[in-house]
């Protein structure tokens, strides 16, 4: 290349000297022979040709040469095949995008050209845009991973290099971005992490197609139960695991997942005599496939713990109630003068002890109920019957308690025809709770009124007292656990557990009913429960014969 350049320059110099010689000769007063004119004209033509060749071909040849130019073209072509290339102007507007970018993103050139390059950023990564731009403004290239938004809304991971294009004074006049799609590698890496974790879980994990119910994955725990090798999984379907699968029932169960109504389904099941707690979710994999992910947890240990806990609680309950029977019984007899008239001071002290023994029994009962609710073991025997049955029973059961506070319970407008479906014992417990609270918080000598009225499609049983009322700030949490309203000094001896109203709320909810209250300080409170109206001709069941103490 250099020797060519030397020869070219030498020829040009010689021709220049030859062409300039007549001009120099004329300048010194010599004239040129006419015979020399054709030679000079020829030399001028050759000179011009060589200058044109040098400028338009020879000069670029100096920079790259023909093979270099081809190499460059090949490199650009390879880059265009491999990577997504885009160019922006100084305002970050796209003015060139290559075919690869259009192919991968799904956009057309018309969609992109003239738009800010931020249109290619995924929503999650748009915050990166300003930072990258700030670096480029200072002439600093940016390299890193970024998510690119495709026309379909899908996001792909790219490894990007963004170079600033600067003018001679170092001002940013645009950028060159080169992106490579690394989604597959990224997915593989993430999936590997996820599957390594999933594989070692103690719970059984299954992935299957929601349409064909063919398995695509099982973790170690799942493989251990079904007895298959990992390589077999993709040849199996749900029918291979559950021979007596009720397909219609299973499809009905997963339907709310497929319609997007719920994001997970949980249910208890029994597999080969072992209790399981199952959870199914619908996920979209990185590759865009819908898959059911079922997580099965062996609940036998949990069931055994629950059984032992229930047994322990029942035993404790029994062991506590037995001495309480003697304590409360003995004090009750003494207070009734069964053993003779008591001195007033002794009666006063004994009354305190008796009230507190009552409280202790209440605490035991409430704790047992809370445990039963937590364990889902509170059983309801729903029967359609008149509400007056349970109202009468609750008033009778609370008569003695109300008398203690010199409070009279009055029934108003209780319609004998008002029927609802309810558990007699549990509803009695709720009404007893409301009536005893009303009595406790009523002024001496006042009334507590029990009413039944129809409100829309429900019957409302309300218990109204004329006590101090509940402060507004306490009303919002009155049905929460351990909530107790401050009592005046005259009622200190009959403090509750703070669990009664919460238990009542749960009992009412479990019976498809509700509970509520209205209260005004200085006027009184009305607590109410509501049951859906039941058809009067529904079968009337016998009321249980249990006698509450």
């Amino acid at each position, binding site marked *: 290349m250099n020797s060519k350049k030397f020869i070219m320059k030498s020829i040009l110099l010689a021709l220049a000297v030859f062409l300039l010689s007549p001009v120099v000769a004329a300048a010194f007063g010599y004239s040129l022979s006419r015979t020399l004119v054709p030679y000079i004209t020829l030399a001028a033509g050759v000179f011009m040709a060589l200058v044109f060749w040098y400028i338009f071909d020879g000069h670029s040849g100096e920079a790259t040469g023909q093979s270099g130019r081809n190499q460059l073209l090949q490199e650009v072509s390879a880059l265009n095949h491999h990577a997504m290339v885009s160019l922006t102007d100084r305002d970050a507007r796209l003015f060139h995008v290559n075919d690869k970018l259009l192919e991968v993103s799904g956009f057309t050139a018309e969609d992109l050209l003239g738009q800010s390059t931020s249109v290619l950023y995924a929503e999650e990564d748009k915050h990166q845009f300003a930072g990258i731009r700030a670096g480029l403004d200072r002439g600093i290239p940016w390299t890193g991973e970024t998510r690119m938004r495709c026309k379909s809304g899908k996001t792909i991971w790219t490894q990007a290099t963004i170079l600033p294009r600067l003018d001679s004074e170092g001002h940013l006049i645009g950028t060159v971005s080169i992106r490579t799609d690394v989604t597959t590698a990224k997915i593989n890496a993430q999936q590997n992490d996820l599957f390594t974790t999933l594989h070692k879980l103690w719970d059984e994990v299954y992935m299957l197609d929601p349409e064909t119910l063919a398995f695509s994955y099982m973790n170690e725990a799942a493989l251990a139960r079904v007895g298959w090798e990992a390589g077999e999984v993709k040849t199996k379907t749900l029918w291979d695991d559950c021979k007596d699968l009720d397909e219609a029932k299973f499809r009905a169960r997963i339907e709310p997942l497929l319609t997007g109504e719920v994001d997970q389904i949980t249910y208890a099941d029994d597999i080969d005599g072992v209790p399981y707690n199952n959870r199914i979710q619908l996920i979209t994999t990185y590759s865009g496939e819908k898959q059911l992910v079922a997580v099965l947890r062996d609940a036998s240990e949990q069931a055994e713990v629950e059984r032992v806990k229930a047994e322990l609680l029942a035993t404790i309950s029994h062991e506590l109630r037995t*001495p309480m029977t003697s304590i*409360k*019984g003995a004090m*009750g007899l003494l207070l009734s003068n*069964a053993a003779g008239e008591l001195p007033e001071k002794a009666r006063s002290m004994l009354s305190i002890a008796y009230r507190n*023994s009552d409280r202790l029994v209440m605490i035991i009962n409430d704790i047992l109920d809370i445990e039963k609710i937590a364990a889902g073991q509170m059983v309801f025997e729903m029967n359609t019957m008149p509400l007056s049955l349970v109202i009468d029973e609750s008033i009778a059961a609370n008569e003695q308690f109300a008398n203690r506070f010199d409070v009279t319970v009055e029934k108003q407008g209780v319609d004998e025809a008002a029927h609802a479906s309810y558990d007699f014992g549990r509803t009695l417990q709720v009404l007893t709770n409301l009536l005893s609270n009303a009595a406790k918080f009523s002024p001496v000598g006042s009334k507590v009124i029990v009413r039944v009225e129809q409100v829309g499609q429900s019957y409302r049983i309300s218990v109204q007292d004329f006590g101090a009322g509940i402060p507004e700030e306490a009303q919002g949490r009155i049905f929460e656990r351990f909530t107790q309203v401050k009592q005046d000094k005259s009622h200190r001896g009959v403090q509750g557990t703070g669990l009664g109203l919460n238990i009542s709320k749960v009992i009412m909810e479990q019976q498809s009913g509700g509970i509520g209250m209205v209260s005004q300080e200085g006027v009184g409170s009305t607590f109410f429960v509501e049951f859906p109206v039941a058809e009067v001709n529904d079968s009337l069941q016998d009321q*249980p014969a249990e*006698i509450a*103490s």
Partner: protein
Amino acid sequence: MLKLLHVEDDEDIREVANMALELSGEFEVLQCASGEEAIERAVGFGPDVLLLDVMMPGMSGPSTLKELRTMEGMADTPAIFMTARAQPAEVEELKSLSAIAVVVKPFDPISLGDQIMDALKQAGKA
């Protein structure tokens, strides 16, 4: 006066119940500390009503009732259980053992006599 056979292993509860039943004035009471003792003395006493604790060492209340039912004159004697285990399922199970009622401990000694009389009336036995 109704003859009431009360079977209860806890001595204190026996004493409280005895005083409570005396207070009501409706019953002539025989108390036994175990199912075995009750079986031994029941025929001689000829009870009109049985009041049985459920959980007792040795023979339980239900086992005692089962045995008493085989004895002369006691196939239909109304029986009432007393229990501190008052889960609805347990109460139902006790009622299925030919008992007319279940009294839950701790019971109210003042109204115990009335509760028993009410249960007898409801069952048509009084």
